[in-house]
C-alpha cells in the first residue's frame, strides 16, 4: 500500500522536521480560540506524512505555524526543529532562506494565494531570485522546466499569463510549480489536489512521490481524502479540534484504528480503499474552539465515552511500535472492536 523504502523511525539527531508542543491560539471577540494544541510530530527525510481531519480541525493552522506565518493576534508557542535549528526562534534573515528554499508550502486556495497582478512566470522566477544565483535566462529555463514538470501545456505562452487567465486546475499546478522551484527538502502541501479531477490528481501525486524518491524530499500532505493517504503516505496523523489524536504508519492506522474518531473517519471509506470518498462527517459537530469541552474534546460525539472521558484529557500515548500513538482512554477497547475494514 505504501511505496516507502525509507525507515520510518529515526534517531533524534536525524535531519528532518521535528515538531514539539506546537500550540497556536487566536484572541477572538468570543474568547481565546485554541486552533492547534500541543502538536507533536516528526517528518523524516523522504517521508510522506498525511495530516487528516475534519474542516476546522487545525490542519492549515499547523502548517502555517510551522512556517511562522501566523500573524497578530495569533500566538505560537512550542518548538519546530528543522535540521537541528529551531524555526520558532530563528532570526529573520535565516528564516527567509529556509522558507521557499528548504521548506516550501502549497497553499490551500490557489485563487487567492497567487498575486493577481503578476504573470505566473514572474511568480516562479522570484523564488529563484530569492534563493539562487541563476541569471535571467537560466531562471526562465528553470521556470519552463517546472511548467513542464507539473504538466501545464504551452508553457512558453503561459509563463506570461496572469492567474485569472488560468483555470482552477492549472492555477493549482502553477502553485505547485512555484513551491517546487528551488527543489525544497520539505514540502508542506495543504490539499494540493482538491481542485483537480481524478486523473490530474493522480499525476500530481505521482509527481510528488517521484520528487520524494529523486531528491529525498519530505512531504506533509494535508487532505480530506483517505484514499489519497492510503495511496501516497508512509505515516499519518489524525487531527481533532486542534490536537493530534492518533498517529502511526498508514498500514497500522488503517488496519486497526485506536481512536474512535479515526474509526469513524475510516468507516466512510469503502473496503477496497480505491474509490476516493471525501471524509464523511461523523454524527454531531466539531466543538467550538473557544469553549472546548472538559476532558476529551471528542467525548460528546463518542460512543465509547465513559465517566473519565468527561473529566480527564487523554494524553497522546504510545500504543504500539513504529511510533504508533493514540489519545484515548479506551484505545484498547476501540482497537478490539469489530473491524471496519
Amino acid at each position: 500500500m505504501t511505496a516507502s523504502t525509507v525507515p520510518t523511525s529515526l534517531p533524534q539527531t536525524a535531519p528532518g522536521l521535528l515538531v514539539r508542543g506546537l500550540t497556536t491560539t487566536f484572541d477572538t471577540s468570543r474568547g481565546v480560540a485554541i486552533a492547534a494544541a500541543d502538536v507533536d510530530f516528526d517528518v523524516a527525510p523522504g517521508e510522506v506524512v498525511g495530516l487528516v481531519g475534519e474542516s476546522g480541525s487545525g490542519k492549515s493552522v499547523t502548517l502555517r505555524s510551522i512556517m511562522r506565518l501566523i500573524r497578530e493576534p495569533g500566538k505560537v508557542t512550542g518548538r519546530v526543529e528543522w535540521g537541528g535549528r529551531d524555526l520558532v526562534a530563528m532570526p529573520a534573515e535565516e528564516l527567509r532562506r529556509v522558507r521557499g528554499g528548504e521548506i516550501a508550502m502549497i497553499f490551500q486556495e490557489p485563487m487567492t494565494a497567487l498575486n493577481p497582478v503578476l504573470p505566473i512566470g514572474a511568480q516562479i522566477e522570484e523564488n529563484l531570485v530569492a534563493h539562487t544565483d541563476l541569471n535571467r535566462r537560466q531562471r526562465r529555463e528553470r521556470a519552463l522546466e517546472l511548467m513542464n514538470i507539473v504538466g501545464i501545456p504551452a508553457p512558453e505562452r503561459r509563463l506570461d499569463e496572469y492567474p485569472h487567465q488560468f483555470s482552477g486546475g492549472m492555477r493549482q499546478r502553477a502553485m505547485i510549480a512555484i513551491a517546487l522551484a528551488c527543489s525544497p527538502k520539505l514540502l508542506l502541501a495543504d490539499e494540493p489536489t482538491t481542485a483537480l479531477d481524478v486523473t490530474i490528481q493522480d499525476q500530481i501525486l505521482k509527481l510528488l512521490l517521484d520528487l520524494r524518491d529523486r531528491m529525498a524530499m519530505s512531504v506533509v500532505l494535508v487532505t480530506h481524502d483517505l484514499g489519497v493517504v492510503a495511496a501516497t503516505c508512509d505515516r499519518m496523523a489524525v487531527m481533532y479540534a486542534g490536537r493530534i489524536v492518533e498517529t502511526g504508519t498508514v498500514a497500522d492506522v488503517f488496519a486497526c484504528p485506536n481512536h474512535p474518531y479515526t474509526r469513524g473517519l475510516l468507516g466512510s471509506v469503502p473496503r477496497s480503499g480505491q474509490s476516493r470518498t471525501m471524509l464523511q462527517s461523523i454524527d454531531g459537530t466539531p466543538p467550538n474552539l473557544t469553549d472546548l469541552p472538559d476532558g476529551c474534546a471528542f467525548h460528546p460525539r463518542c460512543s465509547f465515552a465513559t465517566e473519565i472521558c468527561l473529566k480527564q484529557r487523554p494524553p497522546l500515548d504510545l500504543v504500539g511500535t513504529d511510533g504508533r500513538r493514540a489519545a484515548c482512554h479506551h484505545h484498547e477497547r476501540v482497537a478490539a472492536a469489530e473491524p471496519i475494514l
Partner: protein
Amino acid sequence: MPLFSFVIRRLLQMIPTVIFILVVTFVLVRMLPGDPASAMLGDRARDADVNRINHELGLDQPLIVQFFYFAERVVTGDLGNSIGLKVSVASLIADRLPVTLMLTVMSAVIALVLSVPLAFVAAMKREKLADSVIRGTFQVGLSMPVFYVGIILLTVFAAQWKLFPVGGYGTTLPDKLYHLFLPALTLALSFAAVLMRNLRASIINVMNAEYVDFAIAKGLRSRVIMIKHILRNALISTVTLFGLQIGTLFGGAVITETVFAVPGAGRLLIDSIYGRDYPVLQGLTISLAVLVSLTFLVTDILQAWLDPRIAR
C-alpha cells in the same frame, strides 16, 4: 496587443466628452450676468455703445448661430481673439497653461513623495504612535483651506526666513522650479492627505491578502514583498483616486496662483471672468477640460498596467 487597443478605445471615447464640454462651456459662459461690452465700458456706458460693441463681436446673433460659429472655429483649432487683451486666445493659453501644468505636476510629485512612504509607515505601525502622528498631522493639513495654508507658508518661509521668493515666476527652469516650490507645496498638502489616507487603508487591506502570506512563505526579501506584492496592489485603488483628484488639483491651482502671484492659467481664468472675456474663458475651459480628460486617460493606462485584469 491588448493595451494598445485599450488606449485607442479610450481615445475615441474622449470625443463625445469633448463635444459635451464644448456645449456646456458655451452655455455656462453666457449664463454669467453681464456681457463683455458692459465689462469693458463700465457702469456708465451708454446703451448705444454697448449695442455697437456687441454687434461687432457678433453677440447680438441668436445663441444657436453663435454656437455653430464658435464650434466651427474650435474644430479648425481657432480659439478666437481675446476681447480685453486684443491678442489670440491660443497664444495666451500657450503662454499661461504650461505654468499651471508645471505647478500641478510639481504638486502631484510632492504629494506622492510625501504620501507613499508615510502611508507605508502608518500602515505598518497601525494604531501605534507613528500612525497617529502621521494621520493627525495630515488631518490638520486637510482641514485647513488652501489659501490659508498658502498664506502661512508664504509668511514663514518667504517673508520671514527668506528661503523662497514671495511670488512671481522665474525665467530659467531651475529658477521656475524654485519660484513654484512653495505654491506647489501648498497645493500638495491637502492632496497628499487624501492620497495618504486612501493608500494607508489600501495597504492594510492588501497586507492581509493570502498572496502576501504566500510571498512570505516563498522566502522573498521584505523589500520585494513590500514593493512588488503590497504596494503594487495597493496602488490600484489609489491611482483611481489620483486621477479623480487631478480636477480638484487644477481648481486649487487657481487659488494658489492668486495667493502667490504666479502668472498661470488660473490667474488668466479669473481675469477673463471679471472681464467677461468669452473667447478666453471658453478657450481656457476647453483646454483645461481636455487636459483633465487626458489625465484620466493616463491614469486609466497606468491602472491597466498595474492591474492586468482591466485591459481585456
